[in-house]
């Protein structure tokens, strides 16, 4: 069992320490806390990365980068400024996007995007049977977007495309892409009940 370092846990969770507490412990060099944090979040982190990269071994490489970065920079995480899972997933998404773009110049980039386009469910909300509560919530919220907003949001977030790539792909001006992404995020935020 882990001894938490915070004086006043912000929220009392079940029995186990909160991810925020774990990250705080990791920041003080606690390797056991890191192992627990890893065990509790790795499938989600890897799931997100693999959604963008498709390839499993590349995804594991990026996940390894992300978790090492979490270890190195946990000292900079401030629980008062946001949830631990947001911090970790933002980092994971960014590294995955970096990796996708790094191969931009190589031919396999186009191939991969091509493959992804034909992957069933990529351009639509997956209604898969066995999904998490979170997944259902998000799927529901995504379904409330206009088709055009949803397409742009998914190409950006799950496809790792930049706004100019989206503009080229959909043959629309970049300004329109930006507007769609922002309008889409406003609607998603409201549907998901993200509070300021």
């Amino acid at each position: 069992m882990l001894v938490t370092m915070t004086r006043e846990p912000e929220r009392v969770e079940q029995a186990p320490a909160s991810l925020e507490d774990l990250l705080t412990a990791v920041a003080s060099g606690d390797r056991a806390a890191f192992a627990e944090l890893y065990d509790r979040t790795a499938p989600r982190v890897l799931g997100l990365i693999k959604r963008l990269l498709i390839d499993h071994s590349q995804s594991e490489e990026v996940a390894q980068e992300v978790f090492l970065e979490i270890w190195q920079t946990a000292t900079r995480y401030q629980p008062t400024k946001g949830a631990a899972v947001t911090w970790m997933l933002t980092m994971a998404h960014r590294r995955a996007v970096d990796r996708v773009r790094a191969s931009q110049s190589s031919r396999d980039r186009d191939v991969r995007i091509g493959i992804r386009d034909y992957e069933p469910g990529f351009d639509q909300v997956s209604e898969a049977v066995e999904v998490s509560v979170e997944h259902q919530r998000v799927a529901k919220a995504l379904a409330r977007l206009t088709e055009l907003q949803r397409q742009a949001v998914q190409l950006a977030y799950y496809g790792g495309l930049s706004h100019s790539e989206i503009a080229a792909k959909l043959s629309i001006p970049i300004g329109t892409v930006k507007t769609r992404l922002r309008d889409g995020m406003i609607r998603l935020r409201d549907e998901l009940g993200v509070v300021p």
Partner: protein
Amino acid sequence: MSAREDEDYGSWAGAYALGALTPDERNRYEQYLHRSEDARAEAAEFGDTAALLGSATEPVAPSPELRANLLAAIASTPQLPAEDPAPSDETTQRAREDVLVGASTLGGNVIEPAAGSKAARRWSRPVAMLAAAAAVVVLGVGVAGGTGLLNPQSEQQQAISALEDADDLQRVEATATDGTPVSVLWSEELASAAITSDDMPELADDLVYQLWMIRDGETIPAGLMEDGETAAVMDGELHQGDVIGITVEPAGGSEAPTTAPILLQAT
């Protein structure tokens, strides 16, 4: 920055949270965030929203090796100090922010391009330790700028041909931390080494790839690889057991590495 430009930035909030900006745009947007409290609030909300998109993906079970590698790696990986580095570290910071994708304020929390951030976490333990040592080494006698510049293409080609013809040519197909394939060639007989890659990502104008030989705890500058170059012969004599490294440095190069290596290759 005019109010009008800021108005334009207002429409970038979605693209920013969804990761659809280029690193340069992201930096500009983050500067705008410093100026606008409303934009910061929106960025935080959108950051949380994007993270929900992230947590809605199908979980994937990692291999047992990933866990084992990580637990081994953290045992020898230093953590960032809790506070920002000293001002003398400014160049380092700037270089990192420019290249290594910059700190983010998404969700209100800073995501640092930390020491070794984008760096290969593929390093084996001893190499990671070496790199950590390399990063803190300060050379007494620096070789910066001019002396490290590349030879003209033709000389370079000749040197590479000589390397390729060497009886004891060693060639390793390595991968930089961003996934770029890089070939490392060396010959102990010729005491020479070279890097070739057709796909090095383009850098900002004020940045350059710098090559290093790491020997007995010392990190020795071994020349630059400018944007657009596909090959670079390393300056200086390669000694047996040297580790070859590449970092991104401010234009002209540095006396000692200021960013984490994007590639390390033992010879």
